[in-house]
């Protein structure tokens, strides 16, 4: 059954239809939140919030566009505005700094997993808007127009963020490789 049909059934009162949508997109929503926020607990809270918001705003979903785009943009908007109080932020930074791996050797770098961890660590150094733009455009392959709408910015600005983000990552990777 397609996403649009599930949404329709959900709006008609079918209580299981939304559960199917949750099952279908839970990992992708969590993954996006984790890649943007860099903290699994925080990402989990945000995933919960994203699905709750999607459920309560389901009537606003435009069925002519893919449900995945709508849901991921909603998640990205929550990530953009997600704030933690100073104490929680500090605790997360401390955890992140303790968990920060030592710079990998060339041999380690060749391993896919190490490369992914390095990329995630470098992504966290980017400003949040650039990080979200890169993930939505390259990882989720969403159209520029949807990203611009999500980030409340003109498409030209999103293009500039994509350029700056990609250039920073390229430079940092080159620096890491020496």
């Amino acid at each position, binding site marked *: 059954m397609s996403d649009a049909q599930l949404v329709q059934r959900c709006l008609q009162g079918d209580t299981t239809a*939304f559960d199917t949508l949750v099952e279908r997109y839970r990992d992708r929503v969590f993954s996006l939140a984790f890649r943007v926020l860099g903290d699994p607990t925080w990402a989990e809270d945000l995933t919960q919030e994203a699905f*709750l918001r*999607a459920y309560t705003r389901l009537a606003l979903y435009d069925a002519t566009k893919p449900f995945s785009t709508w849901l991921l943009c909603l998640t990205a908007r929550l990530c953009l505005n997600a704030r933690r109080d100073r104490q929680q932020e500090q605790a997360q930074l401390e955890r992140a700094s303790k968990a920060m791996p030592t710079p990998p050797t060339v041999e380690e770098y060749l391993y896919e997993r190490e490369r992914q961890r390095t*990329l995630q660590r470098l992504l966290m150094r980017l400003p949040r808007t650039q990080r979200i733009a890169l993930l939505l455009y390259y990882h989720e392959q969403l159209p520029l127009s949807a990203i611009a709408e999500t980030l409340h910015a003109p498409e030209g600005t999103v293009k500039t963020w994509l350029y700056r983000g*990609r250039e920073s990552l390229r430079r940092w990777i080159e620096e890491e490789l020496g």
Partner: protein
Amino acid sequence: MRTCPHEEVLHAYTEGWLDARSQQAIEAHLAECHQCQRRVAGWQAVSEALRALPVVPAPAGTLRSAQASHREWRVVLTLSACLAGVALWLWLAGFYQPDFNRVAEWTPYSVLSEGARQAVDALLLLWHMLREAL
């Protein structure tokens, strides 16, 4: 094209955002500029790596269904509304016996709190009666 194009233009080229003529001009430049070739290759490697990032699975059992929590809220709200309705009915049905000799001393708070207290007493009485009967 002898001088290198602006980096942002070069970046737009890699995404195919330029018009056909500009794309061709950049291509011609790239054929002879190793520095720009290297930059473009670096960006393409970054975007490939971003595309290849795996989906991180949500921790098992920790994410409750959004609808389930929504349902829980609906149950809580319905129960609260039922209780409030029963309390109101008990109050209006005569279990509440206000002291009309002290009308002058009534305040909205005293009326509500006394009413609520008597409604709770009535509910408790009803509960005991039901328990006895069963």
